[in-house]
């Protein structure tokens, strides 16, 4: 039992350190710098594990990129836009989680609205189609006939 407890404790310890490995302890000159750093960590993509941002990723490259961004921010005093440009120049737009609006991404940005519009067009035609269906006019004889049929069903 004791052994089991030790074992479980070890596992928990291992997990907690893994969870922390993503973010290093950083010192900043001012709070604004920290804000920019944190923002960039969430907006930049790790290119190795492509569905993680730099903040979440444990990959070696992500750590290097975090160091690089930190250095650019605190040593070279680059602005947020300059850092983004530096990385986009090397890794392409893919490094940004939120792709910029430009010619090659136009379909990506406009796509949902085009689909929505398409949906409305289809809806319009479906509704018009249904309205054009001739309404069946019933005279009294037919009414009685239907009533009879329905009642016979009940029995």
């Amino acid at each position, binding site marked *: 039992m004791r052994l089991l407890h030790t074992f479980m404790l070890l596992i928990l310890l291992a997990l907690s350190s893994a969870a922390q490995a993503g973010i290093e302890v950083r010192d900043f000159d001012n709070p604004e710098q920290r804000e920019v750093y944190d923002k960039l960590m969430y907006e930049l993509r790790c290119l*190795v594990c492509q569905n993680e941002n730099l903040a979440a990723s444990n990959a*070696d490259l992500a750590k*290097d990129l975090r160091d690089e961004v930190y250095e650019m921010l605190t040593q070279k005093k680059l602005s947020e836009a300059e850092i983004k440009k530096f990385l986009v120049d*090397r*890794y392409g737009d893919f490094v940004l989680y939120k792709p910029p609006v430009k010619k090659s991404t136009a379909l990506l940005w406009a796509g949902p609205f085009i689909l929505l519009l398409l949906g409305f067009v289809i809806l319009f035609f479906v509704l018009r189609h249904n309205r054009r269906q001739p309404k069946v006019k019933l005279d009294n004889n037919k009414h009685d006939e239907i009533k009879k049929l329905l009642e016979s069903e009940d029995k």
Partner: protein
Amino acid sequence: MIRYLPLGGFVILLALLYFGLGNDPRNIPSPLVGKPVPVFSLPELYDPAKKVGSETMKGKVWMLSVWASWCVSCRAEHAVVSQFVKDTQLDVMGLNYKDESPDAKAWLSQFGNPYSLVAVDADGLVGIDSGVYGVPESYLVDKKGIIRHKFTGPINQKIVDDTLKPLVQTLRGETAS
């Protein structure tokens, strides 16, 4: 007619998804193609006092090959790259990315050394500057020092025959100035 619309939409979706399967998510178009190769100057693996870099290869067609002894796919492409270098007599500079020099040397003596020079990028900074995100990566550079092609991942025979060899021919035919 209108009742077939959902079916049509479904078929289009299916086709899109099917083509999506064939795409390699690692194959990100590099913005560096068409741009000058990043300027760097690093110690040489066998002669650390000597600095080698983009200047060393100026004026000729060459390839920058990013590799490491810890990288399994580098081992996979090694034989193909070696044969390619032998066939074309291409100058290839190895960029030993985030590696230990003794390991790198052992690796080269075990598998053979196709590189004319090996630059040691121990902390991976030149790697970041060159947009490296998955070793192995290969950059084909023309006589003016412009990156003309980038390949991410292990090079195979098909890529050598279809892309690299014809491109080396073309680049060699160009003038340096």
